[in-house]
């Protein structure tokens, strides 16, 4: 059970140290001190203020999540995205379903598209070589119904593979943007600042 404002601030600080930059941490702690000061000036009890703010552990989790999501938004990288997702998962067990499952599905989707793209890109030229060898009359390489058609199919397969790889890149960028927006919305819902649509 929290006894004092100082204890609240101490716990909050200990949970956020090492995560946030020092100046940002100082700002946040200053805001919460100000909140306590204003509350007391308005005649509210510390216990009442504790209740309205929530536990310092929960507040720290929300701040961490918001920080990592903002960081992932401003500096796009897989590492930052993973940190943001990890921090958001810490907000509640239900986020295993609402965040982790969609994230895994998207990663699998992108991975499958990428693998198919690479396979087609590699298979195309190889199949083209088979078509040429088939035209030269080497029966062991006769994989095509028509080797002449095989050359064109090989070209088509190669370019299709490249399209898949390029498309996968843009798809990943799209999902990254959408994912960040979703994480922000998720944090907002948990903090109670945004209603569930």
């Amino acid at each position: 059970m929290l006894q004092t404002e100082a204890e609240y601030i101490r716990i909050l600080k200990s949970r956020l140290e090492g995560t946030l930059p020092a100046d940002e941490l100082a700002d946040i702690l200053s805001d919460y001190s100000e909140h306590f000061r204003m509350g007391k000036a308005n005649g509210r009890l510390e216990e009442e203020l504790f209740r309205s703010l929530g536990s310092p552990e929960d507040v720290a989790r929300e701040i961490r999540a918001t920080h990592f999501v903002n960081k992932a938004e401003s500096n796009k990288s897989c590492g930052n995205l993973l940190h943001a997702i990890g921090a958001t998962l810490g907000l509640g067990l239900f986020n295993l379903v609402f965040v982790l499952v969609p994230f895994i599905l998207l990663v699998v989707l992108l991975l499958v598209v990428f693998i198919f793209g690479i396979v087609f890109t590699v298979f195309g030229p190889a199949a083209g070589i088979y078509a040429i060898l088939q035209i030269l009359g080497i029966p062991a390489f006769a994989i095509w119904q028509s080797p002449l058609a095989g050359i064109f199919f090989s070209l088509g397969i190669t370019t299709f593979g490249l399209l898949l790889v390029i498309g996968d890149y843009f798809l990943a960028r799209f999902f990254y943007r959408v994912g960040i927006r979703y994480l922000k919305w998720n944090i907002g819902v948990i903090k109670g600042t945004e209603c569930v649509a």
Partner: protein
Amino acid sequence: MNIRGISATRIILWLVAITIVSFVIGFGILALAGGFPPSADHPLTPFRNNALLTPNTTIIPLDGATSGDVRLTLGAGDLTLQGGAPDAALMEATVFTEAGIWQPNLALGANASQKSVVITEKGHAGKAWFAVDSPNRWEIRLSDTIPIRLDENVGAGDNTLSLGTLNLETLAVHTGAGDTTVDLSGYHGGRFDGTIKTGVGDLTLRIPRTSNTRIQVHQGIGDITENGFIRHDDTFVTPGFNTSIAVNQITLNQGVGSITLETV
């Protein structure tokens, strides 16, 4: 993404265009080559039914037979025949072909103590650039333990027989077009009569020096090279040939191509 002034959009549009045009041309060629409309023989795929050569091995048991009658007909493809079938088996036949429809027909029979095997594949047509002929290869192993009557036909393709470990009663080899090699090195089986007929292609025949064999050659166009035989016009005999003992008689009929006779 911008590679030397070419925008990603332009690259993607080019790739899409190349992909579509390539597939359209590919399927167009398939249509011209008779690949359309799809059927059981030509499914809607640019690939052959079974793209890679698929081995299919069949073992024919002896079932107590004491002799064998083997007849093989391969329309187009390469055939390799030798001894070394598994114990208690008349034949181990491995067929490497692409499509199930080109698997040969197999017929078995038994007559008294003789087991007969007939394997037939009638061949198929190719279309040069538009469809190269099918790879088709048979690898046959026959029993070394029982006397065998062997009748073997290859329409077009290489025909390689290593018969040194077999025990032959009769031997009939027919090759339409392709090289033929009949190797009887180390043969210690019973006396046999043989005929070898080839249309177009080179023929190599290897006979054990001590096998008391006579070879009658009828050749159309081509050279004859012999090594270790005694020649009398178109007849070649092994050294020490003696008609008073069992004689292996082989008749060669060659259309066009060289003949190489060797004693080993």
